[in-house]
């Protein structure tokens, strides 16, 4: 008898073990149901930083009646080492109740979700019930963000930020070399066009300064300025503008116009505080570079900076919000409400107004350039870091000149291969022909794209 009980126990334990293992996959669902109190519906939100989730939480605080209807379940996976995309893809493909309803995509890979392999899963804003064309017109959304967010004629993704780039330069150096730190006059010294930029670099060099920190800074501007994307008719195409970057890179290197740093390295950050090899005259970037990167690295040079119109228009980074067509149909209205508030509401109650003025959170967050031009016009973009300059005057213009028409979903990889080969050429270890040949080979080998 005793033995029998023991045997039964063992059998039971084994079964429990086996069951628990199999149940592991389904346990998430149980949590969900337990968490929802009453008739609240869940909106699944996927993002790669807590930026968008924080905005949504703020919306819930400001609009308690929304919180009574919906609850938000956020999934945040960092983009580090490409972890976000595979997870998001699986979640979208897997569908069902846990599928993302709203998902965020970053500039480096947004094309895959708006026009590339995953585009078919995005739901047009108009089908969410948003009068998208009229709203874009009314808010004066920066055209490049719309171009990127368009699948054919349908807008499927928009952002809240404007990431049009400017020249962010040191006032004191400009004064020393040209006798003025006025943004208009400085812009006339360094542009338009790269010949002027290089002759300005020569003047900087004469005084012992570097024009830019590294070749990559220039690439951020030039990579999207041409007319042809990397791939035309399934074939690799090198736009003349990109081809020309190699020459400019070599000029920078040969003449010592730069400190030859890599973006995001210690040396690059050191150049922001003027403690690198030589003091650097300018960085090229959007408002987020000022607020989130330079501000914390500039040290004593804070306040000595200003922004001016760049030699050529460009954009760098940004977040686009998309709705999943296979998301839960019951929460569609809530999804539309959130997306509209974040991306298209240009009123004083919209997200972008408080984002531009740094008033979204009570602890006075940073001011940032936003997608809507009309919001920026009404807002106060004066920040101490720029010596009190109203940065929106420049960034409205920057957003208009940025080009979002020549992106492909392969850009991140292609750009890396290209700048690598450009460095090989600029530093003199290869001829330009060899560098371009090797670039083509890399693209063909790793992406399977035809090269002529």
């Amino acid at each position: 008898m005793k033995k029998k009980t023991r045997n039964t126990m063992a059998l039971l334990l084994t079964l429990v073990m086996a069951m628990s293992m199999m149940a592991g996959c389904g346990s998430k669902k149980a949590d969900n149901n337990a968490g929802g109190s009453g008739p609240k519906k869940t909106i699944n939100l996927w993002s790669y930083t807590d930026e968008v989730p924080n905005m949504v939480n703020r919306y819930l605080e400001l609009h308690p009646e929304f919180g009574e209807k919906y609850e938000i379940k956020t999934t945040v996976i960092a983009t580090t080492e490409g972890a976000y995309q595979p997870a998001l893809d699986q979640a979208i493909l897997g569908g069902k109740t846990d599928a993302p309803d709203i998902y965020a995509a970053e500039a480096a890979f947004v094309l895959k979700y708006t026009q590339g392999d995953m585009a078919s899963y995005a739901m047009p804003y108009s089908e969410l019930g948003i009068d998208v064309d009229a709203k874009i017109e009314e808010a004066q959304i920066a055209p490049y963000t719309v171009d990127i967010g368009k699948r054919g004629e349908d807008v499927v993704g928009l952002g809240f930020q404007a990431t049009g780039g400017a020249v962010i330069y040191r006032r004191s150096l400009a004064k020393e070399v040209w006798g003025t730190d006025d943004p208009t006059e400085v812009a006339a010294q360094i542009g338009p066009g790269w010949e002027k930029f290089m002759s300005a670099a020569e003047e900087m060099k004469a005084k012992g300064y570097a024009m830019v920190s590294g070749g990559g800074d220039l690439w951020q501007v030039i990579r999207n300025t041409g007319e042809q994307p990397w791939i035309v008719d399934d074939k690799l195409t090198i736009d003349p503008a990109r081809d020309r970057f190699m020459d400019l890179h070599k000029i920078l290197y040969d003449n010592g116009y730069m400190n030859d740093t890599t973006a995001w390295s210690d040396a690059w950050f050191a150049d922001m505080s003027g403690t690198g090899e030589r003091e650097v005259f300018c960085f090229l970037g959007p408002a987020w570079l000022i607020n989130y990167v330079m501000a914390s690295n500039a040290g004593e040079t804070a306040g000595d900076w200003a922004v001016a119109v760049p030699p050529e228009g460009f954009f760098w980074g940004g977040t686009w919000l998309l709705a999943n067509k296979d998301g839960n149909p019951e929460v569609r209205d809530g999804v539309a409400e959130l997306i509209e508030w974040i991306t298209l509401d240009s009123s004083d109650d919209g997200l972008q107004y408080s984002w531009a003025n740094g008033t979204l959170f009570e602890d006075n967050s940073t001011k940032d350039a936003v997608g809507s031009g009309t919001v920026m016009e009404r807002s106060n973009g004066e920040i101490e870091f720029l010596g009190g300059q109203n940065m929106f005057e420049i960034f409205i213009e920057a957003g208009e000149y940025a080009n979002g028409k020549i992106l492909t979903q392969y850009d991140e990889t292609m750009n890396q291969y290209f700048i690598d080969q450009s460095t090989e050429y600029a530093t003199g270890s290869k001829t330009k022909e060899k560098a371009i040949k090797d670039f083509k080979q890399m693209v063909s080998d790793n992406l399977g794209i035809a090269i002529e």
Partner: protein
Amino acid sequence: MKKTKKQYARYGYLFSIPFVVSFLTFNLYPLLYTVVISFTDLKGVAATEFHFLPNLFQNYIDAFNNPSFVTSLKNTVFIWGINFIPQIVLALSLAVWFTNKRMKIKGVGIFKVLFYMPNIITAASIAILFSAFFEAPIGPMNDLLMRLGLSSKTVYFFRDALTSQGIVAFIQFWMWYGVTMIVLIAGINGISPTIFEAAAIDGANGIQTFFMVTFPSLRPILLYTLVTSFVGGMQMFDIPRLLVQRSGPDNATLTTSVYIYNQAFSGSYMFNRAAAASMILFFIIAVCSAILFYIMRDQDAAALKKIQKARAKNEKQARRSGA
């Protein structure tokens, strides 16, 4: 008695169910799936449908016609080689010193822990640590070289192919020599002390003892180390992937595993080609391991086995003819 035994055996099967199920779903199924898709046209991030290629081995042919793949194979072998040779020499020397009864080294335990330490830290942290070390133009290693007067110019370590490969190999060496050393110490401790005593009585010096006693007795363990290191080295992925962005100057640190990753996840999602490259890597590892086993086999034991076999055969024949 017999009955209860049978029952217990049944429980054994039950207890192994969790393992078997997880092995079948998470190991065997993906493995077979990889084999299958290596013959297909499965490509694209959201693709689930695939067709077998008219020429089944097209993906394999493509791989060998792909210069990056060939480079990656060469790199992998080269980087593994320049990491393994110093690694085995150092590990063997340390193992012999630490087990030497005459030298009476103090604090062996502490040294073992210290040498093992790099292997405990995750590869990702180590990769970030080293890439910060060798950063240019401002970085600790550049600073050091300048201060010691060894270099007057900034050195861009990761722009030079050989330097990049050397750094990757050094990290592999530094991470694994401690592990190898522990394995070898265990191996030496497993050799019967009577052999060492006999050698000592015969008047063998340290070097003679090493080459005549320790080394031959350690052969199976050395073979084990060589094969595991080779298998691990061929699959080298994390350090080269994380240390140098992309794959180093001109693919210098592109290992085969990084190549496979790039095929699948760098933009074109060519799962079929990645699978084919994985299969090729698998065959290379399997064949090379088999060759290593053959070369390093215990020849005396093999010869003995042969003799025994022959004798058994003779006896059998003798018996048969007798009957």
